[in-house]
């Protein structure tokens, strides 16, 4: 049963989702009502989304477990692992706090979440937390007791939202990620000098094609090649690359189809570690 039930579930889910793909999509304009296939498919997609979200939690738990183990074993990268865990923990804490402003215990709220600045129609400003901004009223938690109150929407002129989570994102996460990506320019330049060799006919063709694409992609390319770079680039991309990509995509898709069929029919069981 340990093998049969997962295989049975895979076969049923795979067949249902595949059949639902070919069922006509609901379209009130053409009088096509949602079919039972769509209902089942929608339900399965919701389950899959939940499973992926749970997968994230498992990923976090695994990350913490592995890194804590390595910190305990005094791994040479311990400082980086500490930074990783601290960053993740703090970002998670601030993010969760912001998501639960409505329910959060007041001392935690005031320490973890920066308050919004609310400008009223009479020109005065109050600090508090905006929970919901509707057309008729704005729901807030404001000092001193941070109880939930409602004020008429027309009494609020503007709201300036502040977020520690976004501040961390803007000041640390975004610049660090952009820096990592920018380093590619330096490493590609180094690799171009050290590794790209015209050792064979194929390698020479690849190098020539790469150079043409690089020239055709930038304004200076045409000026340096008497206007030849752009048409050559267009020919390569619109014919050679297009044909090659189509062949690869069709080949890969047939492979995916065959593997999918094998899984749905219970012939492929590698996902069960068999």
């Amino acid at each position, binding site marked *: 049963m340990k093998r049969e039930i997962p295989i049975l579930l895979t076969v049923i889910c795979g067949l249902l989702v595949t059949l639902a*793909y070919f069922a006509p*999509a*609901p*379209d*009130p*304009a053409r009088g096509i009502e*949602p079919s039972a296939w*769509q209902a089942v*498919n*929608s339900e399965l*997609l*919701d389950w*899959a*989304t939940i499973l*992926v*979200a749970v997968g*994230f939690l498992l990923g976090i738990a695994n990350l913490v477990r592995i890194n804590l183990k390595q910190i305990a074993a005094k791994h040479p990268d311990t400082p980086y692992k500490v930074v990783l865990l601290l960053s993740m923990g703090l970002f998670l804490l601030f993010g969760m706090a912001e998501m639960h402003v409505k329910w959060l215990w007041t001392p935690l709220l005031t320490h973890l979440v920066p308050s919004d600045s609310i400008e009223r129609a009479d020109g005065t400003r109050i600090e508090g937390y905006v929970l*919901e*901004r*509707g057309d008729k009223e704005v729901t807030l938690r404001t000092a001193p007791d941070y109880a939930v109150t409602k004020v008429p929407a027309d009494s609020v002129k503007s709201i300036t939202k502040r977020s520690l989570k976004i501040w961390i*994102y*803007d000041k640390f*996460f*975004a*610049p660090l*990620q*952009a820096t*990592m*990506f*920018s380093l590619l*320019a*330096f490493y*590609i*330049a*180094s690799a*171009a*000098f*050290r*590794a*790209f*060799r*015209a050792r064979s006919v194929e390698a020479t063709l690849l*190098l020539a094609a790469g*150079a043409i694409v*690089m*020239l055709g*992609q*930038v*304004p*200076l*390319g045409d000026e*340096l090649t008497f206007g030849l770079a752009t048409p050559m680039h*267009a020919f390569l*991309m*619109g014919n050679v*690359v*297009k044909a090659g*990509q*189509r062949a690869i*995509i069709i080949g890969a898709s047939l492979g995916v189809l065959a593997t999918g069929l094998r899984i749905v029919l219970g012939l492929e069981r590698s996902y069960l570690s068999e």
Partner: protein
Amino acid sequence: MATPRSFDRRWIFLAMGVVVVGLYAAGIRAPLPNSRYVESFHKTIEDLPAGSIVLLSADFDPASAAELEPMYKAVIHHLFQRNLRIVNVATWPAAPPFTRDAFSRIAPQYHKQYGVDWVELGFLVGDDVALGSIGQSLRSAYPTDTLNHSAYDSFPLLRAVGDSCQGIALLVTISAGFPGVLEWIPQLGSRYGVPIITGTTAVQTPPLFAYYPNQIKGFLGAATGATQYLQMVAENTPELQPTRDENQKRMLVQSWAHMLIIGLIVVGNVIYFTGRRKAQA
């Protein structure tokens, strides 16, 4: 004689740094001629009747923001200019701060009202599965919006979209990788017949040629495509002209960075073949 492998690569890093920083500081702009792929992208938006609903998907993060953020903002300007309504989603977890920032700056310039002219649905976890869910039922995928956490049906715009995506006239995906345009094509394009246009990073662009013009109606390939598109849109949008000028400056930097790389390939090969000939002699 030093071989390419023994050469201190810090000199190459320095050369690249000097080219990038020096030319950027010089501030010289390099306009580009348009390509048919960019013109098709622009025309697809132009051809939509006013009031049509466009699903805009931010499938990128800060790593690719230098390439993709200018085109993302330009698309929002263009859609609002044409009085099209936008349903914004994100399939990358780090995208929503960009999208919120962009809309909070651009929407007021066109006096667009949240919930009527645009709505922010935020990030949906699940990669391909999430895209399938959006196609199957936007309401089920996003029971609430992400700015106000209000119910789906409380927004006139989302009521116009309806349950599935039949109300969507066009999908614009600004895509940096997986999940992105290549996953949207089977999930929304082929399945529900929603026309797709896209803007992508340089590494994601070559596969798109295989899908043009059927599955993808037009595309912006990397910074080059973004600059070409900005040149077209900025003509009628003074707010976009600084971004267009900035991108044209970046194109000159990119031009010379490409020249440096080509030069390094040539020099590396000359050294390699000279050394090999000497060794054979």
